[in-house]
């Protein structure tokens, strides 16, 4: 009889613990791009420390996933670095708006054993690597951009994204601008039919992981992934002909023109931007926030987070390899936040 009482008490305590321990925090679910995942991850963790009653659970499943899940309503908000098309916006079951958060850069990463120099890549060279026209590292076109470098006579393994990816969108957007063949054959999208050889990996993490481990491979990832994993990344030729390695300043320069003429829905492409110091493969990344939240408490929490992001979050961007939003854009965003219900 005493045993039974002890068991009952334990059961009661467990139930209270479960119910009580979790009833406190409000859970907000989000999903989307892996491009900004490192900084979103840090933001959400810090925000949870500052506001322990709100847990924003962000799952980096790729921009395509973010668009699909927020359109279906299975997550509370999404994230994508490829803006939604008009068709996607009209077909979505939940109406969303784009809110830009940071700017980032996509860099070409490669793994050539015993080479510790930074390589230069022209846009059309990159396009032809993925089309399959350029197959070996010591191809004359690569050598032309890298005089004096001892390139190995070895086949290139191109690595791309197997999942729906905003990073792919940015990358293919850039390639479409610099290679007419790419524009006609492939186009720009979060998920494309890769014309040439190569292997697909899931997420920025997957591509970075693959390139890190496979010698003679070549891929494209967001800058922070190359930095965090100490990978070699190359310089890309920008619209004025200069070879630039990605830096937050280069990205800010690329956004300068767009910042002045920002459309109201924030959907703008800044790849291959003009200007001497612009890094050519730059982009905004957006959060896809529903215009109206079905749960007003969630709406308030999200609005609160967005304001926190503008006040405190943006200052951390540069430290992580992203560029903060230009001042004019920040002002616009503050106004847009008030329209969310």
């Amino acid at each position, binding site marked *: 009889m005493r045993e039974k009482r002890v068991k009952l008490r334990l059961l009661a305590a467990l139930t209270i613990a479960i119910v009580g321990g979790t009833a406190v925090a409000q859970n907000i679910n989000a*999903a989307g791009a892996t491009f900004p995942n490192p900084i979103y991850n840090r933001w959400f963790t810090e925000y949870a420390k500052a506001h322990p009653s709100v847990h924003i659970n962000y799952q980096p*499943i*790729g*921009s*395509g*996933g*973010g*668009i*699909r*899940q927020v*359109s279906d309503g299975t997550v509370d908000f999404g994230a994508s670095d490829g803006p939604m098309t008009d068709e*996607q916006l009209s*077909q979505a079951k939940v109406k969303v708006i784009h809110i830009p958060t940071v700017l980032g850069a996509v860099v070409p990463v490669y793994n050539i054993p015993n080479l510790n120099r930074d390589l230069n890549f022209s846009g059309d060279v990159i396009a032809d690597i993925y089309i399959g026209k350029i197959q070996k590292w010591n191809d004359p076109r690569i050598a032309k951009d890298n005089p004096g470098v001892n390139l190995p006579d070895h*086949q290139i*393994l191109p690595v791309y994204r*197997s*999942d*729906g990816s905003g990073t792919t969108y940015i990358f293919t957007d850039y390639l479409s601008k610099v290679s007419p063949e790419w524009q006609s054959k*492939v*186009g720009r*999208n*979060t*998920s*494309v*039919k*890769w014309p040439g*050889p*190569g*292997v*697909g*990996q*899931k997420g920025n993490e997957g591509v970075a992981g*693959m390139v890190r*481990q*496979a010698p003679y*491979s070549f891929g494209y990832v967001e800058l922070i992934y190359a930095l965090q994993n100490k990978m070699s990344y190359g310089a890309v030729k920008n619209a004025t002909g200069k070879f630039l390695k990605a830096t937050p300043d280069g990205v800010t320069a690329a956004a300068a023109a767009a910042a002045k003429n920002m459309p109201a829905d924030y959907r703008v492409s800044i790849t291959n931007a003009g200007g001497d110091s612009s890094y050519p493969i730059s982009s905004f990344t957006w959060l896809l926030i529903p215009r109206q939240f079905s749960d007003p408490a969630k709406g308030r929490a999200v609005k609160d987070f967005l304001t926190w992001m503008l006040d405190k979050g943006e200052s951390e961007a540069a430290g992580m390899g992203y560029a903060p939003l230009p001042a004019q854009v920040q002002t616009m965003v503050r106004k847009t936040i008030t329209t969310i219900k």
Partner: protein
Amino acid sequence: MSSPIISVAQTPRQTDPSGASQGSPVQQDVGPEAPKSAVRQFLMSRSSGKAADTTFLAIMLMCALSIFAIVIFILFILIARSKLSISQFGFKFFTRSAWDPVSGDFGAFAFIYGTLATSLLALLMAVPLALGVAVFLTELCPQKLRAPISFLTELLAAIPSVVYGLWAVFVLVPLMRDQLGPLLQKYLGWTQLFNGYNFGVGLLTASIILAIMILPIISSIARDIMLAVPISQREGVLALGATRWEMIRMGVLRNARIGIVGAIILGLGRALGETMAVTMVIGNHPEIPNSLFSPGYTLASVIANEFTEATGDVYLSALIEIGLALFLVTIVVNAIARALVWAVTRGAPARAH
């Protein structure tokens, strides 16, 4: 039992109120034939009557029918959600090799090829080994070693797919890339199967890890089959002067042929649907591979990679149609296999597998 006795003591014949028992002996109020009160009658009938048994049977039957319900429900929902893709692409979906989310053009042939190629290659590698282990454990193994070795082979079946994938990514892929691949290319390059560059991930690596995964299934079912062959068959062949191998071949394997084929087909069924480990090492390239080193894509992998992000109804519907195809194929394959196995073991109590 006390109440009848008390009633006898408390109701002397003279004061019997009912009057209906005049002249009846005392025994009328004693024993189980004594008229029970209405409440007692009610309680006893609730727990031992037909109703309780029928209710119990009904509940058990419903739970058993739930298995049918599960299969029907999965079928129904897969068909419902893939209607869009079926109406758009028709049967050509399975014969064309195209996967272009941009233009909305989908054809699953490359995945079917990848699935079949990896599964058949895995079978090729696993079946001889599995049969060898089965023969060893049932016929040749000393009694003391039997339990540990069979335990070890069953442990292989217990390792989850994702752990196999983890090991494959960090051990098998570098092994294939740095040691095994060049070796194969050097000695077997003439077969034209090893052309193209070897990056570690691809068809061959996926097949190897798949072979390791289906081995325990084929082996354990083959063992069950071989144990079901009556000992008289073995003894008869030995009495005719056969060597041990001849005894196995003629007495056991010949009788167990059908069941062993069933075991192999079961292994095939598992290989067709295997997802996680294959996804991590197949390279995710939706094109028909032209060498054992090239990356490919399987039906299960494309679903795992692209399901949560398929934007657009046709895209999602195409993926679900692939899921439907996978479901139907594995059901058919498993049904054939189980029928073959059952034919040999005749439902004899198998081990808990």
